Every structure is written in structure tokens, then in C-alpha cells.
């Protein structure tokens, strides 16, 4: 009896979901955020449902299996968006158009109620590295530590230390594609010393930017699109990036608020960004990001284009040579030093400016093919500069800030697929 009461109580609790962000999975997240009774967890261990939002690449399947096996029972996977494997029954799949909240809640209630079998392990769990001990107590052997007569005596670090000359052990690991607040799909092979990054290489590039951000710009190429819609998309894209930076600086409520504002802008409601910006400033967002963190030189900023270039102070924006914009009194907004702080401030300024333009000209149409330079349209070729050259020497939290200070298109171009 008591179990059922607890069961019923548990079923009413917010649904613990761990999100594996696939390609253009973001709209699902905005739906979930608005509903409010979905609880996004930081690790798969705290969740019962693994939500795979959007399309994932075939090469990500082993990572998904590993995530899935870490989840405690009762557990289930929920595919959102056009899942390529269609052998999954209806309860755990939903098309990318509709709102995933209701099916998620129903699935969760069934899971808790026990009427839905929890999924079994996908990977067998024997330790990856074989045991190579040689000593009589199983210790020693080459590469394995274990006292004078048997093992390697001293930890001989391969790379000299970059800080204070104390060459200690380095730790090499892969940071996976589906971590929260990690550019979706990116896999880095990072060598740590303590929590300072010594070196990093790209194993897998991040997913290309979200279709929903590019859709009005693509449509513009072959037919007229309303100016308001283009500016709204730009504002929502910037707000989503700001939300990620906010949650990295331990302001979860503000980041949730930013995402909700983005969702409402997408639903064509008129929303002011001013109060959000003031709240973030009061909470010390700019103070938390170290000035000079992630500074990139000017020519790289120019190549990347878009907000990154304007954050470096170059007044180059394809909109100011467009007649409709000049009539509305459009002057490009720029910052001075091109580091994380400048890029976040640039996002805020551009979002506010975009909303002002959108509200100023709700029905003006832009002629076809005018605005050819949307920064996050992935047509530009990848650069030879790697984002991983920015990371060495940074602490883990700062490195995450730097990674998230570039929008997804810039990141794709700076972290193309290495041809090992």
C-alpha cells in the first residue's frame, strides 16, 4: 500500500529528463521549458528518461548507449524528432513538430507505475583495460605502479608542465558529445593536469547550426520574407547563446528566464529584453567572465564574421547597405576588445536592436536575395585555425565559457573534422 502512495506521489513530481542534444533539437527544449514540470538534470544518473532531441549521427550511437546504461532503473529513452530507427513503438517517439511534454509525462507515469518495463543494459560491463599486475600481490608490471621491485617507480609525465615546473601526472580523456552546456555533438580529446587543460584535439566536429535559425535566411534567397521574422530569428538565436552562458555562471533561474523569453519571441509575442539584461548585470554576469578570456585576434574575427566580427569592433554588417534598414535608422552595434565579455555584450545589444527593428517594421518585406550574409549559414569554408588552440592553460570552467562564447556556426568552422 505505502509503495503505491509513494508511487503516485513520485508520478506527480517533475519528470527528470537528461537531454542528449542532437541536430536542431533546441525547439523541443523551449517547449519543455515553457511547460515547467520537466526537470533537466546535469547527469544521466539523476534522470529516468533520456530525451534524444533531434537527429543524431550514426557515430554517436556508442555514446548514447553509454549514457543509457548510466541511468538508474526504471528508465526509458524518448526519441524526439525524426528518429532514424523506426522500430521503436509509439509511446517513445514523437515527430519534431508537436510538443513533447504530454507524451513525456505519460511515459514517466507509466514508468513509475511499473506498467512499462525498464530498459535493459546495452553494453556488457567488463573493465576496458586488462589487468597487467606481475607482483605476488597482483601489483607492478610495466605501466602499472607498485613498489620498487615491480612497477614503474616514478610517474614520468610525457609533457612538461606549463605552469610552475612541477611536472605531475597528466590525465587524458574524451569529453563527450552530449554533456549539458557543451556544444552539441562536439567531442574533444583533452589532456588535463588537475583541472587545467594542457592540450586538446577535436575528435568529432559539432553539429551544424540549427535549421530553425537558418530557415528565414534560406527562404530569403528565393522569395520575399518579412523583415520582422528575420530579426526575431536573430534575437532568439542570440538569446539561446546567452542562456547557455548564464547557466555556466551558475545563474540557472536567469538562464531559464532567457530561454522562455526566446520561446515567446519565437511565438511572435512582443517581449522586452531590458529587464533580463539588467538582472544579469546586477548578478555580476560581466564581472564573472574574466576580461581578456578567449581573446581572438582581429583577422580571425573578420574571417568568422557575424557577431564575432562585430564584437571585435569592425563596423561591417551587410544590413547597413540595405535600403529598408537604412530607412529605419539602423547603425551596426560593435564592442571593442573581442573576448568572451565583448561577445556576450554583443549578443545582448544585437538582440535588443533586432527586437526594436522587428517592432518598428512589422509588415515591411525585404526583396529577394538582399541579405546574403547570415553569419550562421554554414556555407563558408572551415578555417585552418582550431578552437583548441584557445584552450590550453585555461581552467575547465573558463574553457567551457570560451567554447560557449562562439555561436555554433563559428564553432563548426573552427573545429572541422580532423583527418587523422
Amino acid at each position: 500500500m505505502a509503495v503505491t502512495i509513494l508511487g503516485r506521489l513520485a508520478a506527480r513530481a517533475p519528470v527528470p529528463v537528461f537531454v542528449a542534444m542532437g541536430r536542431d533539437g533546441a525547439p523541443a527544449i523551449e517547449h519543455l521549458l515553457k511547460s515547467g514540470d520537466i526537470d533537466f538534470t546535469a547527469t544521466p544518473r539523476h534522470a529516468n528518461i533520456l530525451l534524444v532531441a533531434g537527429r543524431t549521427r550514426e557515430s554517436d550511437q556508442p555514446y548514447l548507449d553509454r549514457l543509457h546504461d548510466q541511468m538508474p532503473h526504471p528508465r526509458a529513452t524518448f526519441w524526439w524528432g525524426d528518429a532514424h530507427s523506426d522500430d521503436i513503438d509509439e509511446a517513445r517517439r514523437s515527430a519534431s513538430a508537436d510538443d513533447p511534454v504530454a507524451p513525456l509525462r505519460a511515459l514517466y507515469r507509466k514508468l513509475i507505475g511499473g506498467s512499462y518495463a525498464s530498459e535493459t543494459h546495452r553494453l556488457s560491463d567488463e573493465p576496458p583495460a586488462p589487468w597487467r599486475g606481475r607482483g605476488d600481490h597482483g601489483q607492478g608490471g610495466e605501466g602499472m605502479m607498485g613498489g620498487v621491485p615491480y612497477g614503474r617507480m616514478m610517474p614520468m609525465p610525457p609533457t612538461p608542465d606549463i605552469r610552475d615546473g612541477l611536472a605531475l601526472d597528466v590525465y587524458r580523456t574524451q569529453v563527450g558529445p552530449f554533456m549539458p552546456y557543451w556544444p552539441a555533438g562536439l567531442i574533444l580529446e583533452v589532456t588535463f593536469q588537475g583541472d587545467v587543460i594542457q592540450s586538446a584535439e577535436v575528435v568529432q566536429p559539432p553539429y551544424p547550426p540549427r535549421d530553425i535559425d537558418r530557415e528565414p535566411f534560406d527562404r530569403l534567397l528565393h522569395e520575399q520574407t518579412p523583415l520582422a521574422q528575420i530579426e526575431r530569428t536573430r534575437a532568439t538565436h542570440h538569446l539561446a547563446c546567452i542562456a547557455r552562458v548564464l547557466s555556466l555562471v551558475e545563474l540557472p533561474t536567469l538562464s531559464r528566464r532567457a530561454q522562455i523569453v526566446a520561446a515567446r519571441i519565437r511565438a511572435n509575442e512582443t517581449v522586452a529584453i531590458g529587464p533580463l539584461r539588467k538582472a544579469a548585470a546586477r548578478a555580476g554576469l560581466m564581472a564573472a567572465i574574466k576580461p581578456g578570456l578567449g581573446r581572438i585576434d582581429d583577422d580571425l574575427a573578420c574571417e568568422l564574421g557575424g557577431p564575432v566580427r562585430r564584437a571585435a569592433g569592425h563596423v561591417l554588417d551587410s544590413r547597413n547597405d540595405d535600403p529598408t534598414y537604412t530607412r529605419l535608422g539602423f547603425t551596426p552595434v560593435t564592442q571593442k576588445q573581442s573576448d568572451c565579455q565583448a561577445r556576450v555584450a554583443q549578443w545582448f545589444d544585437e538582440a535588443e536592436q533586432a527586437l526594436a527593428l522587428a517592432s518598428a517594421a512589422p509588415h515591411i518585406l525585404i526583396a529577394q536575395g538582399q541579405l546574403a550574409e547570415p553569419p550562421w549559414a554554414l556555407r563558408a569554408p572551415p578555417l585552418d585555425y582550431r578552437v583548441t588552440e584557445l584552450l590550453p592553460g585555461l581552467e575547465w570552467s573558463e574553457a567551457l565559457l570560451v567554447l560557449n562564447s562562439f555561436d555554433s556556426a563559428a564553432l563548426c568552422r573552427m573545429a572541422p573534422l580532423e583527418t587523422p
Partner: protein
Amino acid sequence: MYAALAGSGVAIVPFSSASVLADLEVGIVWWGAVEALTVVVVFLHGWSANAQFGLIGAYRYVAIGLPVMLISMFMLIAAALPAESLALPQIVESQRGLWNVIRQPLGLPLFLLLGLSLSFRGPFNYADSADIAGGTAAEVSGAPRLVWEFARLAMLTAVAAMAASVFLGGYLGPWLPGPAWLVLKTATLLLVLVCLTEQLARISPSRMMTLIWTTLLPLSFLHLVWAGVLAL
């Protein structure tokens, strides 16, 4: 274990002039020992996870926890000076005339910073923050995680109760009976702590370390000197 520590922290808080759970005449030193053991326990929680993010979280917590503990000990010693005793009931009695928060203005804010960092909330959330995927609690789920969250809240209340009794004159108050005052003050301090959690952003550990060692620690020295001069 963390919960037991939080419980022992609350034990020495005097509820009223007569009743106190643990009448130690070395209350402050016991609170210092509780803080030190909390740092050890949280490190163990992170280290036992045997995962890289758990370990990073544990190390960042220790790096920030040790200096902050020094600051809190200076605050408490400063509060003990006018009372000429280490025992908490005497400290509360010494505030019958004037509360410590007025006599030693700097004490309460620094002690609240300690409260945040001890239960790693808000701007001091270096142990379980989201950027290291849940930090020390990354590999924990189900019942142990429930206990871990409960212990964090218990430690927050212990710090609030301690701050209330040391700086705001625990059970002293005109109309209401003793314990009611204590509960009231602790509740207000908890409220302050929780909104601090939401409001302030977290700077990176290395900058926070320099901030603590170069500004907060000298500040607490000055506070101690000020309290000493006052108590002469």
C-alpha cells in the same frame, strides 16, 4: 556523514538561556572542527566517485573551502572576545546589551559567505556545479543522492543558526520566548542565504582563490583587530 556533521553543528547552538544540547565550553573550536571535517567529507564524496568530474569538483571545493574556513574562525574568535569565553551560551549572553552584528559590522556578511561556501550554493558552488556535470554528485542517484541534498540543506540551516546565535544574539529578544526568537532569526538568515544563492554569479576558481587570499583574509584580520580594540 555530512548530515551527522550538520547535526552536530546545530547541537551546540543554545536554544534558550537554560537549554542547550551540548554544553561545551569550547563551542567555537567544536564548530571549527565541524567545518574542517565537512571539507574532508565533501572531498571524500567527490573522490570516491572515481570519475574525473567528481574529482575536479572535490578538488575545487577543498581549494575554496580551506581559506574560507580560516576567515570563519577569525570571525568567531572576534565574536568570542567580548564574551571572554569560547562557549556559545556565554557569547549569546554577552550580546544581551548590544548585538554583535552592530558591534562588529563585518562579521555577519563574511560569515554568510562561509555559509554559502560550506554548503556549496550559489556563487560558491564549486563542488556540484553544472559545468562539471553535477560534480561530486555526478555518480550518485537514488537514496544516497537524497541524503546528500538533505545534508546540504541541513548544513545551511546549521550555519544560519550559528550565525544567528553568534551575531544576532540567538535567543535574546524582548517579547517572544527564547526559542521563538532564535527560529525567527535563523529563518531570516536562511532567506538571505537563499536569495544570495540566486543572485550572484560564480567567478572561476582561480580568480576566487586570489580574491579570498588577497582581500577577504586581510579584511578578517582587520575585523579581528577592531574587535580586539573594542573589547579592551
